[in-house]
């Protein structure tokens, strides 16, 4: 029987889940606060580990929602959500209109925000001109602008700081954001391709190359591009008189403190729970875990299920995820919702 599902957030997870639910002949309404669908994928030029263009994935996802006849509403602002028995009433504003819509299930795909690097004041983001974030660097890649220092010179030395806003009690994010290590390796390779004469240094605590082909990419960065990896967490950055950035770190493998200047310092910022997640979470009464991401009904087996019956999760709103993980999770959520809507007995299973 045809049911109505509202999906909140048209990022990777929202689009792919909408495609799968739409293809099951359900009525799917995909709400997006932004002007266009795609979420963070819009801001990423090339993707690890294959260096394929992000827009290829985006058009794949867009084709999906088109084929599956998903009702996509951009510039949609959700005002409130109420629950009446098993039906949700979602009130949202769209094109100066206030719309009420009834749904049988809600899928929350509100994603993540990037860490605000100004909170790590010791790295000088927002204070020194030559300190940028991985997202800023990606913007340079996407717009095709040259990689230059604040003074306009091509940099001779670039440093990458891993784990900025991740694995750090001082900023309240103790978890690993999963994607920054490999993003650092990817961006280091891209810089070496654009500026072969530039020396690139990565300062890491652990290189977490867990995914398929990540380790090969890391090795390639060493072997073919001569990227230098130094184990140690940068303690502070300060500005030299010429505008370059002096960094201090312990080279833990040499067991010696090390200082060096770089012309550009790139901070590999992590994932934080999104503002959108907080807003939607408050409306629906969704529980969050210790890290502030949504809490799933079970960490192993019920990863798409929330504490509110009829509300489901997919993507990076429950934990940091790669694009590959997010797409898989979205399809899993679609399948979970479809079984929920037909009252399938598999939902009687309990985990203690």
């Amino acid at each position, binding site marked *: 029987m045809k049911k109505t599902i509202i999906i909140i957030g048209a990022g990777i997870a929202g689009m792919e889940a909408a495609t799968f639910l739409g293809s099951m002949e359900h009525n799917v309404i995909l709400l997006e606060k932004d002007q266009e669908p795609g979420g963070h994928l819009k801001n990423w030029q090339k993707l690890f580990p294959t260096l394929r263009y992000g827009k290829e994935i985006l058009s794949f996802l867009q084709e999906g929602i088109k084929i599956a006849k998903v009702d996509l509403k951009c510039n949609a602002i959700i005002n409130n959500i109420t629950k009446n028995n098993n039906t949700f009433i979602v009130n949202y504003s769209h094109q100066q209109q206030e719309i009420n819509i009834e749904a049988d299930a809600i899928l929350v795909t509100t994603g993540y925000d990037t860490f605000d690097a100004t909170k790590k004041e010791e790295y000088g983001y927002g204070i020194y001109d030559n300190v940028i974030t991985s997202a800023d660097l990606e913007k340079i890649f996407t717009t095709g602008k040259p990689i230059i220092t604040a003074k306009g010179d091509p940099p001779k030395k670039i440093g990458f700081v891993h784990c900025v806003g991740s694995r750090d009690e001082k900023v309240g994010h103790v978890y690993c954001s999963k994607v920054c290590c490999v993003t650092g390796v990817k961006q280091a390779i891209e810089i070496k391709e654009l500026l072969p004469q530039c020396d690139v240094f990565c300062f890491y605590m652990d*290189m977490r190359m867990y995914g398929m082909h990540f380790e090969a990419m890391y090795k390639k960065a060493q072997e073919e591009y001569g990227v*230098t990896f130094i184990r140690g967490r940068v303690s502070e950055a300060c500005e030299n008189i010429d505008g370059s950035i002096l960094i201090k770190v312990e080279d833990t*493998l040499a067991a010696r403190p*090390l200082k060096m200047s770089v012309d550009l310092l790139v901070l590999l910022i992590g994932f934080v729970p999104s503002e959108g997640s907080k807003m939607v979470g408050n409306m629906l009464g969704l529980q969050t875990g210790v890290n502030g991401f949504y809490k799933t009904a079970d960490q192993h087996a019920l990863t798409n299920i929330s504490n509110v019956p009829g509300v489901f999760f997919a993507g990076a709103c429950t934990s940091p995820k790669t694009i590959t993980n997010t797409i898989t999770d979205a399809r899993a959520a679609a399948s979970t919702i479809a079984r929920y809507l037909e009252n399938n007995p598999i939902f009687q299973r309990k985990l203690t």
Partner: protein
Amino acid sequence: MSNFFGYQIHNDRQINFDNNDLYIIKYVDSLEPTLKTCISCGTCTATCTATQFTNFNLRKLITMLRRGENNIKEEINKCMLCGKCSLVCPRGVNTRNVILAIKKTINYFNL
């Protein structure tokens, strides 16, 4: 008498990476390109016969060269060239040849 006042002056232990010259490691890399893929795991050092009896540490020696701390002439002679390190390296670095390359580099630059 040198410690009469209860204090002494230490040399700076900080690695000044801006001033250090990496010509030695670059030459070694050119003689044995597999060295570039070293991830400093320390397997070579764990299996090393010389390390059991001396303070020789191949992992650390390579790390120091990579930082331009080139005072390794005495250290390298502690290696007995048994080649066990080459058998265990997970990245396939020809570590025995690395030692020979370092020795060649020392001669080449007349260190």
